[in-house]
């Protein structure tokens, strides 16, 4: 029927028969094959350097330094990098920076935890049952269209102006990306794996534990990366609107006194926090998704 049939039909003899003699063909011109690597076309990425990601930020700081040093950049517009460093050192010495940072980080962490939990549970409910999907998905899509800023007055009305409100605003922002990406990954689970689970006689719980959750983990972690960034963004909004502590408050206060250097330090702290927490999630991602073989791995 096909070429394989023929080989199989003669399986026994093909294996026991001596291999056909290899006859030398001296006339055949031999093509030299370059021994050095790299002559072939490679479409995948090469092995990543460990600190490669730092190149872009480094160039940015370099550019900024040159502009400040040569005087192209007015210090009233944007202070020089070394001024920012000086100010940061001062702020640390007086304890202002780390105190506010600790408060901010704690808020963001609580919001992230709450938001991730809610996002994950909602995604599971909506991804694994039709009814759940009908009830939950539309509401989440509606929420996606509402900006945090517009929500805050209501949050204040419902939760007051204390910590509960701040953490809630962060959680409400965080849960959306977690939900969207997890839900997406859940719905994309291969029907073949579902069939396999059926033929192996897995219970519903075993199916969720061994097939669904690991299958959706890449989505969840991607959502978490967006969620972490979202948590810092939400933090800025709540702290600058209504707070008496935290990095956002520090920045707002500095703005009132026109302390551009303090504002700048606040900005850099936000950026570093975002970068750091994203790196943390990527680390988790690398550990948890060891089984994948991808372009970047």
């Amino acid at each position, binding site marked *: *029927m*096909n*070429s*394989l*049939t*023929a*080989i*199989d*039909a*003669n*399986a026994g003899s*093909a*294996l026991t028969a001596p291999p056909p003699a290899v006859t030398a063909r001296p006339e055949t011109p031999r093509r030299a094959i370059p021994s050095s690597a790299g002559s072939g076309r490679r479409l995948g990425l090469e092995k990543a350097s460990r600190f490669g990601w730092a190149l872009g930020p480094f160039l940015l700081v370099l550019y900024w330094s040159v502009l400040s040093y040569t005087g192209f950049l007015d210090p009233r517009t944007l202070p020089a990098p070394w001024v920012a460093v000086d100010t940061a050192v001062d702020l640390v010495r007086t304890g202002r920076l780390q105190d506010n940072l600790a408060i901010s980080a704690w808020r963001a962490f609580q919001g992230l935890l709450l938001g991730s939990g809610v996002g994950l549970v909602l995604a599971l409910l909506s991804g694994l049952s039709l009814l759940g999907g009908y009830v939950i998905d539309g509401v989440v899509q509606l929420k996606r269209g509402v900006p945090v800023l517009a929500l805050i007055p209501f949050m204040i009305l419902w939760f007051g102006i204390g910590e509960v409100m701040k953490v809630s605003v962060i959680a409400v922002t965080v849960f959306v990306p977690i939900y969207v990406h997890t839900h997406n990954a859940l719905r994309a689970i291969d029907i*073949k*794996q579902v*069939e*396999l*689970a*059926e*033929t*192996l*006689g*897995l219970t519903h719980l*075993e199916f969720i534990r*061994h*097939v669904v959750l*690991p*299958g959706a*983990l890449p989505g969840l972690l991607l959502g978490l990366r967006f969620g972490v960034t979202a948590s810092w963004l939400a933090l800025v909004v709540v702290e600058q609107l209504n707070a008496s502590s935290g990095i956002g408050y520090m920045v707002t206060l500095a703005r009132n006194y026109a302390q551009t250097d303090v504002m700048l330090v606040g900005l850099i702290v936000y950026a570093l926090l975002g970068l750091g927490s994203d790196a943390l999630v990527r680390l988790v991602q690398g550990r948890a*998704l*060891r*089984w*994948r*073989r991808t372009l970047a791995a």
Partner: protein
Amino acid sequence: MSAVVSIRGLTRRFTLKGILNGIDLDIQEGEFVALLGRSGSGKSTLLRALADLDHEAEGEGEYSVPDRISVVFQDARLLPWKPVLDNVVLGLRGPDARERGRRALAEVELAGREEAWPHELSGGEQQRVALARSLVREPQLLLADEPFGALDALTRIRMHALLRRLRVSHDPAVLLVTHDVAEAIELADRIVILEDGRIHRDITVNLPAEGEARRERFAELEEELLALFGVRSDTGVGHGERERAQG
């Protein structure tokens, strides 16, 4: 001997992979039946019905199958996020599950690869893991849907030998879906040919154990089967391809 599978008047309509049009079939304990047919003849549909995977399909008829059924698919269907041994023992109950899994892996000659990720294995090795996963459950019926269809010719030959050995030690009834005539003759006790959702022919293989007699019977059966599919084995398409495959 008693029938472990008994199918009466089984009909399936409008399924993705073909239709069934009143199938009657018995499979005895330990019997190896190959289901041969063109694509769309309904062979996968029948297998999926027996595996209880055709939830959406409409149809009548009845069938009885044993409790312990294992399925081997054309792709190995290993969960990529589980190491090999965890794939084998997935859903397996009992305190000695992992030990049994280890033994099953040793049986398919994969001892030592327990902790490998599926993507680190070759296609043939992955399919062997799938075999181990099926057999560790000691099935009374093994359903195999073109399990070697995606493997290269040499790997296939090794897999045939392996499957023959495993069959002796585990003794399940086997229903093998294939479109490979030689594979069917090589492995099966009985070959059932499906066409348009009906059983077209039911042929007992009766292959002598070895020697010239075996080769003769093999050739005779192959010619008969290929003729049924409108291919003559001595001339034409089949022959040309044979030469190419060997050359």
